[in-house]
């Protein structure tokens, strides 16, 4: 199975690469449109800032390439936020795969909660194949200050200050706000479920 990881300026692609290697898969890390199109599955990770990441994707025409991929695609963290319609981070238009918009958590002053949302939290209302075989309310690891609002594509939620989209799904596109590659055995199961998908 050929797995490609999208290479761009907001990577911590390394931790995803290591997680795949634990499953015996050596992914290809590439920004080449043809290589991405030719992969069996594509992972779109990301740690960084939304507007500079989108600028890079547009400059390299990766925005169009990702949107038009036909195989299963998994966005993680910033990758998921960039797949949404719009992000408040840098007030930037996203890929628009999901109609959700991405907002900043209210500050501690207003909410009494710390931002970023950092650490382990539980998933609720999990639907779909990615969550097959998981225990009820599994714990996953989060680090983020922005969140995707709940919408028609939401297939799992987490509550921090307010309920937000922990996972999104539409057609061949899957997206997770948490880091499955850092979420212990439950995170590994979610990644394995993605790797086993067939369209």
């Amino acid at each position, binding site marked *: 199975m050929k797995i490609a990881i999208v290479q761009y300026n907001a990577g*911590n692609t*390394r931790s995803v690469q290591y997680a795949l290697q634990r499953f015996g898969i050596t992914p290809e890390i590439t920004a080449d449109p043809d290589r991405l199109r030719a992969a069996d599955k594509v992972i779109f990770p990301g*740690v960084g800032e939304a507007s500079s990441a989108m600028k890079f994707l547009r400059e390299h025409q990766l925005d169009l390439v990702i949107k038009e991929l036909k195989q299963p695609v998994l966005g993680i963290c910033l990758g998921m936020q960039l797949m949404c319609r719009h992000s408040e981070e840098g007030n930037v238009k996203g890929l628009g795969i999901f109609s959700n918009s991405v907002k900043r958590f209210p500050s501690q002053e207003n909410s009494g909660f710390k931002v970023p949302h950092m650490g382990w939290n539980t998933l609720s209302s999990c639907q779909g194949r990615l969550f097959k075989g998981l225990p009820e309310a599994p714990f996953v690891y989060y680090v983020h200050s922005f969140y995707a609002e709940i919408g028609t594509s939401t297939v799992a939620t987490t509550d921090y200050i307010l309920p937000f989209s922990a996972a999104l799904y539409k057609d061949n596109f899957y997206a997770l706000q948490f880091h499955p590659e850092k979420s212990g055995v439950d995170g590994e199961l979610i990644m394995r479920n993605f790797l086993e998908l067939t369209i």
Partner: protein
Amino acid sequence: MLTKRIVPCLDIKDGRTVKGVNFVALKDAGDPVELAARYAEQGADELVFLDITATHEKRKTLVHLVEQVAAAINIPFTVGGGVSSIDDVQALLSSGADKISVNSAAFKRPELINELAGNFGSQCVVLAVDVKREQDDWIVYLNGGRLSTGKSAIAWIQEAVDRGAGELLLTSMDHDGTKSGFAVEFTALISELVEVPVIASGGAGNETHFVEVFTRGKADAALAAGIFHYGEVTIPQLKSKLAQHQIPVRL
């Protein structure tokens, strides 16, 4: 609900853990990768690797170790000890570390925090601060508590957070190694002062100390080394005790 984090710390010298460990069925007590994997299995929420290797040359072994740890474990980990430049941080992050902790180098040149946050994001910049109580203030110490800066920890922490530190690792040198409990008042003071998460460190001796630092101390995470290495407190027992006190933990 967001849970409180339990963070075992491994001191590393020349690529090996230096404090002895007392784990049943551990093949090599000095192998950081094996120990890290064991803690991850037991339910540790994160790990910290603190490199105390003296020479620059030997520090290259740290990068190799980080690669091995990243390949083996499936929870987040922080690497610190002697980190002083963007190049250091780049090497550790690209080897698979999730976060980097900075201490003396950031105090001596605070712009380092801006540079690291700007290049890699605040989420991976942990500011480690060692403090001692002097009269009514808490004073920043460097070099593992041997060198007083004379500067108030509160002012320094506020400045560092404004510059982009994304998390704080607070160690009370008065409590470290005493097993008499964490610096609860100081931890609470800082946790209420800043918006970023606070990891309390120094003084853990029993399960009740963790209950105190998570309730009165308002810590987001608590770090310990010796009591975990020697099996005086095990992570599953600790977490079940915390749960009994209605403290949210990942079980």
